[in-house]
């Protein structure tokens, strides 16, 4: 929905400043980016949040992360990623400006990416996999890949669901990402319960349709409770390449597509893992994985946050037979099948990116200055 008439000139001005700032940066060179540049983009990010411009906010957040890496001369800095997100932010700001000028509400809604939200009274789910993302000095994020066990309108039995939890990370704070799983949520649970291989009942949540999965979000009234142990994991080993091909055929590519947008949850039964090598971008390690006629490229962080997954893949690689079913996310990138391994079923789920090392909760709370 277009913002109110009183807010439109303010938003138009912010969008104009943002696209001009990106253009000026390209004229003078990204090497001239400074802390002031980062702050300009951070200010635009705040405005994007205020006007609920989710897509723009997300692009600006990623650009800011990369600029911070550049300014800090971090070895994980990726200029490809920086130019990608600056370009995306420019495209969105130009498109939104145009939609405001022409009062084109449909176009504005498409660019702000506001999927319709439906309430979910209660749903029983299990956790098939956990994506871990660490951006040093910025945030730690976990994405829980869930599966509904029974019909619970608007959720259907077997439906793939995603719930994410993001924790801001202060610069200089050096604690393992897994520590954040033990922090209490507003809804009085800790996300570490998703590691318990149990059935969870989630109540008073919201559901939003998304290309990368139907997303659950929690409300102030939500509850998340672990109930009984779950063992019938094999019922979810049902990946079909034909369905993935059908989704590709139906998809119309657009300039705002992200490589990871058309994700498939897949399970590999009979597979081999090849020797690791350097990835295309700095800070990436890749593993060739072959399953039948399919050749996947698994991309893993070379930094500390990728250590548990690298160790797990090395262990799976050594197995000569009886490799456990491997669950993960498939997306399409650089004309390749990119695979993100998440879980080995032995037969209980072993969440591969999550470190098994014990967390000193007292030290964690002290480091975070919790009282």
């Amino acid at each position, binding site marked *: 929905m277009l913002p109110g008439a009183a807010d439109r000139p303010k938003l138009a001005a912010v969008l104009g400043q943002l696209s001009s700032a*990106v*253009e*000026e940066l*390209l*004229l*003078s*060179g*990204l*090497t*001239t980016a400074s802390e002031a540049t980062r702050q300009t983009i951070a200010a635009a990010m705040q405005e994007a949040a205020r006007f609920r411009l989710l897509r723009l906010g997300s692009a600006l957040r990623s650009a800011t992360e990369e600029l911070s890496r550049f300014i800090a001369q971090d070895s994980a800095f990726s*200029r*490809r990623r920086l*130019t*990608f997100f*600056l*370009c995306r932010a*420019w*495209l969105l700001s130009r498109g939104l400006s145009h939609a405001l000028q022409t009062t084109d509400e449909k176009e504005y809604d498409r660019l702000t990416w506001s999927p319709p939200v439906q309430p979910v009274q209660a749903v029983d789910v299990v956790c098939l996999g956990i994506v871990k993302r660490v951006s040093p000095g910025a945030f730690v994020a976990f994405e829980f890949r869930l599966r509904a066990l029974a019909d619970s309108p608007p959720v259907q039995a077997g439906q793939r669901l995603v719930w994410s939890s993001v924790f801001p990370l202060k610069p200089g704070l050096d604690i393992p990402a897994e520590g954040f799983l033990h922090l209490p949520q507003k809804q009085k649970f800790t996300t570490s319960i998703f590691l318990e291989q149990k059935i969870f009942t989630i109540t008073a949540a919201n559901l939003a349709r998304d290309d990368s999965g139907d997303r659950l979000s929690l409300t102030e009234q939500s509850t998340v409770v672990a109930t009984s142990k779950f063992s019938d994991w094999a019922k979810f080993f049902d990946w079909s*390449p034909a369905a*993935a*091909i059908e989704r*590709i*055929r139906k*998809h119309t*590519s*657009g*300039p705002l*597509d992200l*490589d990871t947008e*058309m994700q498939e949850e897949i399970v590999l039964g009979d597979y081999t893992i090849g020797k690791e090598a350097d990835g295309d971008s700095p800070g990436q390690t890749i593993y060739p994985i072959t399953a*039948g*006629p*399919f*050749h996947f490229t698994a991309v893993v962080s070379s930094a500390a946050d990728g250590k548990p997954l690298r160790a797990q893949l090395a262990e799976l690689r050594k197995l000569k037979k009886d490799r456990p079913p491997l669950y993960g996310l498939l997306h*399409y*990138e*650089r*004309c*390749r*099948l990119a695979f993100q391994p998440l879980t080995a079923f032995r037969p209980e789920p072993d969440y591969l990116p999550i470190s098994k090392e014990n967390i000193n909760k007292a030290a964690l709370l002290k480091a975070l200055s919790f009282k």
Partner: protein
Amino acid sequence: MEELTELRDALDRLHTALDDLAMRGLRAAGPQDLARLTALRDEFRAAGAGHVAERLTTTIDAVRADDRSSAATLLRAMVTSRLFDRMLTLEVAAGLLAAEEPAVADNEESDEDEDDE
């Protein structure tokens, strides 16, 4: 397959060339940068990607004229090349996923025959 590999390689080189320009700044672009972009433009035109070639021509002209609009033309070229990359990637991915289980290799059958003997 060879054509695809060449196109993939050309796309990677194009992304790198455009990123290089953005990093160093369009005001600092010299004859070498323009020659590199022109060669890529010709390569994409020859490959039948006329829309990408057209965007590159506009960028080259704007940079040569030291026009302030060159930043916007570079960004448009980036958007177009990435969209082309995405469409190609999805086309290739659909083909890879449609791969059939390979038949048992002849030499494996021969080995078994030899074992039998």
